[in-house]
């Protein structure tokens, strides 16, 4: 029986890492633009009316702070996955990646809790629009991050344990999310 030759080893050209970096740069531009517009509208509103948040709306800081704190273990777990993958430790790599998935789901849940407690209608003013645009985009990125972690775990644990570049790109994505969420936390939840 004639066996087909294996596919050539992928060249170390870091396509996934560079692609992830470019995507992160694009998303940073998106969030930077939204933050800039948010701050401009906030400044105009404060100058005109003296306030920015709609009447009766208060930001629940506990879940917002918990979300910020959760980004630290996520970054640690992402680096843990990279460290374990480089040493061929499949068990620790898998545990780290699935813990990130768990925390990503917890982040989405915390954001839903904030939505439920703030009772901000989607239509009703600049704050409402910008609040949901920015935090909603963040939720989408969390969902994408959870999928990214799950796919990374499946690929790595499914036999492609040499595919360490993917784990590195995955860590880069979560570092980026941590940075953006820190900005979001300060702009949306702290400065209000």
């Amino acid at each position: 029986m004639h066996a087909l030759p294996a596919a050539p080893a992928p060249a170390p050209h870091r396509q996934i890492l560079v692609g992830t970096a470019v995507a992160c740069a694009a998303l940073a531009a998106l969030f930077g633009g939204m933050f800039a517009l948010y701050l401009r509208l906030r400044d105009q509103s404060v100058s005109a009316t003296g306030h920015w948040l709609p009447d009766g709306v208060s930001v629940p800081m506990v879940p917002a702070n918990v979300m910020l704190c959760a980004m630290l273990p996520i970054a640690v777990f992402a680096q843990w996955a990279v460290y374990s993958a480089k040493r061929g430790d499949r068990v620790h790599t898998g545990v780290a990646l699935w813990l990130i998935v768990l925390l990503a789901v917890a982040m989405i849940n915390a954001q839903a809790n904030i939505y439920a407690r703030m009772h901000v209608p989607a239509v009703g003013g600049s704050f409402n629009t910008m609040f949901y645009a920015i935090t909603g985009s963040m939720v989408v990125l969390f969902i994408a991050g959870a999928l990214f972690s799950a796919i990374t775990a499946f690929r790595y644990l499914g036999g492609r344990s040499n595919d360490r570049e993917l784990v590195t790109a995955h860590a880069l994505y979560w570092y980026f999310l941590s940075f953006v969420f820190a900005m979001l936390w300060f702009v949306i939840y702290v400065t209000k």
Partner: protein
Amino acid sequence: MFTTGSKMFLGATALSVVATIVFSASEGGAVGLMGTVGLITAVVIFAFLAGINLFTRDGNTPSMQQGVEHTSSAAQPPVGRSMWPLGAAVGIGGLVIGAISKPVVFKVSVVVLLAAIVEWMVQAWSERASADVKYNANVRSRMLNSLEFPILATVGAGAVVYSFSRVMLSANPNAGLWIFVVIGALIVTGGFLFAGPRLTSRRTIAAICTVGAVALMGVGVASAISGQRTIHPHPVIDDASQKPLCLEGGEEEVDEHASQDVSLKSSVVANIYLQEDGDLIALINGMPGIEYHELTVPRSAHLGVIFHNDSGEAQRLTGRFGTFPDKPEAVSCTTAVHPGKSAYFGVSIPKSNAASSTPFEFIVPGVDGATIKIVVP
């Protein structure tokens, strides 16, 4: 030390820093704040990309590396073309549109996105299964074709049926017949040509079928957008609007295609006959041979009579069930019954203790003297 790409991004970073300082110093207010935040974002992005370029060394491979002619990026075969990134993008766009429009758009987009992701992943995996491109394509087909073909067939058939239904709902009812005739003729002609001895090439057949399906779906979408035509509901004899017809007689749309025969019925208390001479008589069940011109019916009863038309022209039986305060007269009737035919007439006597200002009776509108009195004790 610095690669070409990283030099470019480092320069862009430095320029952005200068621009940020100059702009923030010269422009104040809300515009200045927004511009400064935007420029700081540009600084962060350029610095980040410069770092990535430095880390990856622009993707360069050292020329002295052993086997570089086989392992470098330039030596790799190009990645195969794929439509699934486009499908995933359509799914993501649909998610956004569906979130603010209709739930069905959102749900369909979720399905499209998941399908695109699965297809994309399997294709990417299969392209690295071996060095043989044909073998890789075969692996992909074996894995996904058993799933793709039934789903595509179902979705395609559903799209054709749905499109055709939209066309028929918007087309003029008289044109519907000709639409069926023309499309049926086209299908038969096409099948004849395709199956003929001078076989058209498979590519031509596929192209014709594709164009036909796209045309049908295009017309279907256009029809769905323009909305269906106004379809008037067929009138029923129990409508309040039919009351004048019950009292004055004649034949209208409601009488078209009306049933002229009665199957076995329960709760029938009497058979009412309109005789040739115009006399209306009732034969009560259990009292054979006695012709009645008066029926006694309990209040609030629900019962039935069967009307037989033995006259020479179509007639209907009308029941007048009294007029009570603040209410119009309770009237109902059968549809027009053709000569020699019969119809079932369900009767409900209103539940009221008040006196009626009009008589209770069965009549045949347009036939003088054809009356059966209804006594409600």
